């Protein structure tokens, strides 16, 4: 019944005022029928399956392909990773790797004090943890602050608003490696920034030799590269705030700062929570751009956990897959916790 009704409406839409059939429709109709053919062929077996297993179980049939995909590409690698983390030795195949129980985890957690990486057996891992925590904290604060300011400004009626929205989003489209290389050219000894500093009579600054500067630029470059995405989320939130609230505030002659504090921020808070949690997850996962920008240096001042995992598994002569897998699992647990927080925040937002 519905099919016939759709057909009628399509005909009405396609036919011109004089009732002539446009040329495109002549091609499109048989083509559509041709494309629909395999789907129609599926119709009969699907109906048969529905009769056999019942209508209630049919959703699982439709979920099965996706579940199989996730199983092979997500859950199976997680299981393999877990198994790697309880084995040792340099062999690649699980069948050739000796079982070591929780040995890799024990080695990873062998610490005098978790607050002092130097007291840990695997100090590079704990330096990575400390650096990642520091990086994430600064990055999230800066990311939220800059994204919020940018979103508020881009939500105002300013000239060339569309252009500026595109400009702030543009870095998101760049590959992290490209972002890092561009900034490296700017920040290196003979880079653009030092050229500007010396032309103004200043002394060259070796940004990648000083731990403070290196961390500062790692955070700033990350904020620059990803801010556009978070700005977009906040901008969407700002546009969803009913205009009549602002009109009422204007009628009451409420000061701007008070409007921002009492209307904008509370109404935007659910989006802010999403931004904070997503930026947290992204911060913990950081690797590529910092790796290319600073190489984890100076010393280990910007060595992140993911870089530690990568180097332990692939860069050393003995490719210590077991230890790297154990560190991955620890990182995975942290990320899982953050993801749960994000889900909880999203749910609260929905209600």
């Amino acid at each position, binding site marked *: 019944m519905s099919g016939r009704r759709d057909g009628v409406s399509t005909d009405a839409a396609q036919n011109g005022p004089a009732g002539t059939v446009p040329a495109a429709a002549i091609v499109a109709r048989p083509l559509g029928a041709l494309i629909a053919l395999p789907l129609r062929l599926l119709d009969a077996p699907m109906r048969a399956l529905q009769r056999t297993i019942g209508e209630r179980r049919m959703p699982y049939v439709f979920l099965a392909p996706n579940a199989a995909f996730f199983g092979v590409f997500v859950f199976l690698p997680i299981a393999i990773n877990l198994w790697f983390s309880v084995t*040792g*030795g*340099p*062999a*690649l*195949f699980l069948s050739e790797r*000796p079982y*070591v129980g929780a040995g890799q985890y024990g080695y990873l957690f062998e610490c005098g004090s978790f607050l002092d990486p*130097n007291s840990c*057996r695997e*100090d*590079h891992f704990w330096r990575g943890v400390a650096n990642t925590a520091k990086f994430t904290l600064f990055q999230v604060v800066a990311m939220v602050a800059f994204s919020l300011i940018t979103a508020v400004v881009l939500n105002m009626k300013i000239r060339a608003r569309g252009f500026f929205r595109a400009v702030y989003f543009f870095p998101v489209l760049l590959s992290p490696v490209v972002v890092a290389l561009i900034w490296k050219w700017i920040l290196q*000894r*003979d880079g653009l920034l030092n050229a500007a500093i010396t032309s103004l009579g200043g002394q060259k600054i*070796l940004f*990648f*030799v000083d*731990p403070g500067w290196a961390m500062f630029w790692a955070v700033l470059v990350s904020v620059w590269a990803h801010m556009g995405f978070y700005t977009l989320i906040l901008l969407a939130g700002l546009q969803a705030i009913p205009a009549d609230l602002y009109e009422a505030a204007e009628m009451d002659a409420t000061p701007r700062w008070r409007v921002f504090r009492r209307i904008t921020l509370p109404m935007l808070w659910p989006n802010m929570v999403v931004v904070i949690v997503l930026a947290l997850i992204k911060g913990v996962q950081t690797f590529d751009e910092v790796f290319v920008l*600073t*190489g*984890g*240096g*100076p*010393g*280990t*001042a*910007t*060595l992140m956990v993911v*870089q530690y995992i990568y*180097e332990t598994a*692939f*860069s*050393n*002569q*003995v*490719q*210590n897959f*077991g*230890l790297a897998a154990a560190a991955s699992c620890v990182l995975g647990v942290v990320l899982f916790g953050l993801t749960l927080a994000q889900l909880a925040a999203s749910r609260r937002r929905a209600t």
Partner: protein
Amino acid sequence: MKMIAKALLLALALAAGVCPALAQTSLRMTWYSDGNEGEVMADLLKRFESKNADIKVVLDQVPVNETLPVQLASGQGPDMARVGDMGGLARYMLDLRPYLKNAAYWEANYAPFLAWMRVPGDTSSIPGFMTQLTLTGPFVNKTLFEQAGIAMPDSKATWQEWAKATKEVAAKTGAAFPIAFDRSGHRFFALAISQGATVFNAAGEPAVVDEGFKRAAQLIAEWHKSGIMSKELWGSVAGSAYRGANEEFKNAQAVMYMSGSWQIGQFDKTVGDAFDWVAVPTPCGPANCSGMPGGAALVGIKATRHPAEVARVLDYLASEEIVAEFYARSLFVPGHLGLAAKGVDYKTASPQAKAALKVFSDEVSKLDPLAYRLQGYTSNRIVFNAVISRLGQAVTGEATLDEAYGRITQDIAQQIAERNKK
């Protein structure tokens, strides 16, 4: 009928053309380059294919061989590969001996280096040949010395004398790097062996931190403190990452650059006549004036399904005439005893490059036996990586030298224990 006959003839002619192509064996060679050697190899392979229509070699040129160990561990990977970590990958190498036309030729010309490609206990296999023998050693910007009006130290000068001279030159010319030293454990051991490091204990196990080693480490630390070495190389990255100073040397920012013979081809091309550069003999320490040998080998891979064809390709490339051309065009020190004795005619090299090649060739005789032993040690990269990673931290002030020594010993022991887990 005529039509059918013509069609049959056409089909036969097509089959005749296609069959040899079908019978062709395709081999893959993974190759990384320091200079122009990839182009030279591509050229030589074309020549090989023109003489051996049944073999096609696909040359996969890669920036570094970082993924090769994982490929090989998984039983995949190429049929042949150019490798720098010979000892570490020895267990994946193919013994070409049963397939070679004349194994005696290989033994006569490549014998000392074959040991570097063998697993411990193996004294007879022939996995491949040296595409280059490298020697560590310093390059000097002679023009900066002339501009500063300071005489270059002589060929028997010590590291400390060079440090003093380069610092003076840098002060007078404004060069930022008096000594630029590759961030590499391999290069560090050239200094350490000259300072009397012994590397191994009586049982042949690595016992890296000794008085000679400490002398070298202290020199590195002092040079960083006094500005002779910049933290931009050793201090700017984490872990065992390599950092060279090619750009700094090319831009006349480094007075002396401690690297190795593999850079000659690149400097010949990139520096051009911008300034005069020379290779100088390795500076001396209290023990000797030795550098470190090294190099890269082109080897067959055990997992290949075509060992005989791999051996044919390598037999051709390792033959004296071809390998001589390869060394000459790539500006490499020969890793072939016959050619080392005869000398290679580097026709395409500039006078500066020829002079540098002569210096490095002469350095071979000064190599300490310990340098050869360390290069041939299967787990040498474990030692190199631990040393560079921890001394890098000491240079930036993250750890004291004493802490670094302790960590180096622990790291080496832990990695070797991990490797031995079966």
